[in-house]
C-alpha cells in the first residue's frame, strides 16, 4: 500500500431493513429515525468502511486505531451513495505499518454526505 493509492469507487444503498437491524444492534431509539427514512450517520460510516475494508483486504492482526468523521448532509434510505477512498499516509514503525485512509461519500447528486479518516495498524507481512 502506498501514499496516494486510490481504491475503486464503491456504490451502495442503505435499505430500510439494514437500518432497522442497525438501530436494533446499537439500541438507538431516537424518534428522528421513526418513519422518516433518515439513516443514522454512523450506519453510513459503517457501510463505507465495509467497502473500504473489502478493497484493502486487511491481513489478520489489523487494528482500527483512530477515526475521524464529518457529516455534511442527511442520508435517506432511497439514496444511492458512492464511497471514494485513498491512502493518505503510510508510516513504517518496526514490524508494523500505520496506514491512514481518507474516505469521501457522495450521494446521487454528487453532494458529499460524509468524509472520514481511518487509522489502521497493520502487521508487516
Amino acid at each position, binding site marked *: 500500500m502506498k501514499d496516494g493509492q486510490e481504491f475503486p469507487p464503491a456504490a451502495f444503498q442503505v435499505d430500510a431493513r439494514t437500518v432497522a437491524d442497525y438501530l436494533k444492534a*446499537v439500541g438507538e431509539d431516537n424518534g428522528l429515525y421513526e418513519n422518516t427514512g433518515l439513516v*443514522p*450517520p454512523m450506519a453510513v460510516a459503517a457501510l463505507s468502511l*465495509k467497502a473500504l475494508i473489502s478493497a484493502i483486504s486487511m491481513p489478520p492482526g489489523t487494528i482500527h486505531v483512530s477515526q475521524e468523521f464529518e457529516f455534511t448532509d*442527511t442520508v435517506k434510505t432511497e439514496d444511492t451513495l458512492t464511497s471514494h477512498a485513498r491512502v493518505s499516509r503510510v508510516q513504517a514503525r518496526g514490524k508494523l505499518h500505520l496506514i491512514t485512509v481518507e474516505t469521501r461519500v457522495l450521494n446521487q447528486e454528487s453532494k458529499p454526505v460524509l468524509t472520514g479518516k481511518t487509522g489502521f495498524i497493520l502487521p508487516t507481512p
Partner: protein
Amino acid sequence: MMSTSFELKEGSPLPKITKNITQDNINLYAKASGDFNPIHVDADYARKTPLGGTVAHGMIILAYISQMLTGAFGQRWLTSGKLNVRFRAPARPGDVITVSGSIRRIERGDGHQTIDCEVLCRNQNDEPVITGEAKVKVK
C-alpha cells in the same frame, strides 16, 4: 437559539448513556454492517488470538457516541457533526459502556455557534475505551 435538554454553556455535561455489550448485538451489528471479521463473531477463532475472545466492532462504540450526540443536538448532528477519536481498548461481551461528554468551548460564528465537546467511553472498570472530541454547529 437551539433548544436542548441540557444547558448549552461551556463546562456543561452532555446527557450520558449506558450500554451493555452482548454477543447478540455484536452479531446483529455484523449483519447490518457486513463486517463479519471472526474476531467479532467467531468465539473459537477469537479465543486463539491475543485478545482471548470476541470483541465488539469499534464502530458499535462510535455509534453509541453518535447516539448521545444525536440525543443532545438532534438533526444538527446529522448535518454538521464532526468526530475525532482514538480507540484505547476493546469492548467485550459482558462489558457495560458509559458514554459521556462535556462542552469544552462554544465558538460564536456568523449566524451559528460551534459547540466543541470532549467525548469519552469507559467500561465498568473505569478504563477508557474511546477518547476524543466532537464538534457540531447549532443556530
